[in-house]
């Protein structure tokens, strides 16, 4: 077995064993902490698909994370107040059903990503970074002024949304949901990375002349990748909001975009499981360093600098070797 495969298995096992141990020893806080890591991991896996596989350095993925959060918040808010989201031209009512919220989130995030991508993918490099950032900031300020849904204060919901057959308010059960979603997202991205689309996307990232010379258009590949990426990160936003039973404009902030990027860089850009390692490390650091000092972000920054300067492949690069697998 390759080292990378062993790392992947160890990560998944750890994310399974640790919360189960916490459950047995009755430490619900640690279960919730793990769930948080898992949700962040999903956000990172989403960004990594655009950044690592497509080479699209988006500093605006908070747009999708926040959108997922607000889809959950708005639908649940209307369900709990027995009002409708809109009455005209047709009636859309709220819902407390997680699967429906996820579906709506995935669709809307992909649509938003196509919109943002169609405009921003005409640029590259620093311009692309700035434009994606600008779109997320627009949504950030929009939600701040959107008083119907709490404006700056955000929106709380009383109980977590429902999942058929489960009690989502039980930490271990909500954790299980998120864990399974993570597995599905990883399987999806793994399949994509080995597919025709994955091969062409990676080639486009490495050399656009090459992909054009074989008759294909980089823009279409990038736009599709961006939509998939946005949909995954959007989904994580919905899960995050449900975890906290709260959504606020912070989810759209540039700090959020930055943190999602940190998961990817810490873990290892371009590796399917990289952001999972990155998110886990982030949560561990936040927990340990955050206990030492309020200014733990300074230490995080130092570690990040170390990774970028000395371990370009992130955690995965250090443990599993620099070379990405070829089959």
């Amino acid at each position, binding site marked *: 077995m390759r080292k990378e495969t062993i790392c992947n298995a160890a990560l998944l096992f750890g994310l399974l064993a640790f919360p189960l141990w916490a459950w047995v020893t009755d430490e619900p806080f640690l279960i919730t902490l793990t769930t948080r890591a898992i949700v962040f991991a999903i956000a990172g896996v989403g960004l990594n698909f655009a950044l690592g596989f497509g080479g699209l350095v988006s500093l605006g993925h908070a747009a999708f994370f926040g959108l997922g959060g607000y889809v959950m918040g708005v639908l649940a808010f209307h369900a709990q107040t027995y009002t409708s989201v809109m009455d005209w031209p047709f009636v859309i009512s709220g819902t407390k059903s997680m699967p429906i919220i996820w579906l709506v989130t995935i669709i809307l995030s992909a649509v938003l990503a196509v919109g943002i991508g169609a405009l921003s993918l005409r640029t590259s490099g620093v311009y692309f970074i700035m434009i994606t950032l600008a779109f997320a900031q627009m949504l950030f300020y929009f939600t701040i002024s959107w008083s119907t849904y709490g404006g700056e204060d955000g929106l709380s919901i009383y109980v977590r949304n429902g999942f058929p057959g489960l009690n989502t308010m039980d930490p271990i059960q909500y954790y299980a949901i998120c864990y399974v979603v993570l597995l599905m997202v990883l399987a999806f991205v793994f*399949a*994509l990375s*080995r*597919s*025709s*689309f*994955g*091969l*062409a996307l*990676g*080639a486009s990232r*490495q*050399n656009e*002349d*090459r*992909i*054009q*010379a*074989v*008759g*294909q*258009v980089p823009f279409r*590949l990038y736009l*599709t990748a961006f939509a998939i990426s946005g949909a995954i990160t959007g989904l994580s936003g919905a899960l995050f909001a449900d975890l906290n039973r709260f959504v606020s404009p912070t989810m759209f902030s540039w700090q959020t975009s930055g943190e999602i990027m940190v998961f990817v860089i810490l873990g290892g850009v371009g590796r399917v499981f990289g952001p999972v390692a990155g998110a886990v490390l982030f949560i561990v650091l936040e927990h340990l360093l955050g206990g030492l000092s309020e200014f733990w972000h300074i230490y995080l920054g130092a570690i990040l600098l170390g990774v970028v300067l000395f371990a370009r492949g992130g955690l995965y690069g250090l443990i599993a070797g620099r*070379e*990405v697998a*070829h*089959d």
Partner: protein
Amino acid sequence: MTDPILDIRGISKSFGALKASNNISLDLRPGEIHALIGPNGAGKSTLIKQIAGGLRPDSGSVYFDGQDITDLSTAARARLGMGRTFQVSSLAMEYTVLQNAVLGALGNRGDIFRFFRPVMKDADLLATASEALEMVGLEDFKSSVTSELSHGQRRQLEVAVALTLSPKVFLMDEPMAGLGTEGSHRLMGFLGELKHKTPILLVEHDMDAVFTLADRISVLVYGEIIASGSVDEIRGNPIVRSAYLGEEAET
């Protein structure tokens, strides 16, 4: 005389004050190798770029298979049947040799928007890719990562990827550079066969190769075609000798 498959009509292109292409006309007919020679900076690659796409001529047009393609994108031209190799290798450097060849076969088949089936297990694509790699002599390097190949091997891979496209014409920008004597001879033999199926517009510095392979030669100097004709005509042309072949002998 057969109709040309590729017909370049009065192309001009300037970069600021520099006339990189000055009213260039040339064509490529079925079954031939048309060699384009000229000193460094003459504008050979610039001309290839205008034919393959990626650089739009200021004036003039490019006809391919009877169709004006001057306004088409690079990708569209490739799909119409232009197989191109680059002077500076343009490959997916992180991929293996086989992955690069499969990419060509995939691009040519056109169904890149497939999301689940593992592409490196697609028997058709693998067959096309392997065949092309064998033709250029890279069959033993299938699992080598492209960035680890020698320059010569990268040139071979460029040719192999172009082969997977089953194009109607080849545009080859110095495919022999860095190949070494043995590699050059092998490729020359191969191109000599290939031209019967697919004509080749060949930019090449190696004069031996050009004089052996070419059916026609055009000489480009400072963006202008100063002579065009058969091998013997070019070899005996005094202007060419002083403008180009002479310089070649000095260096």
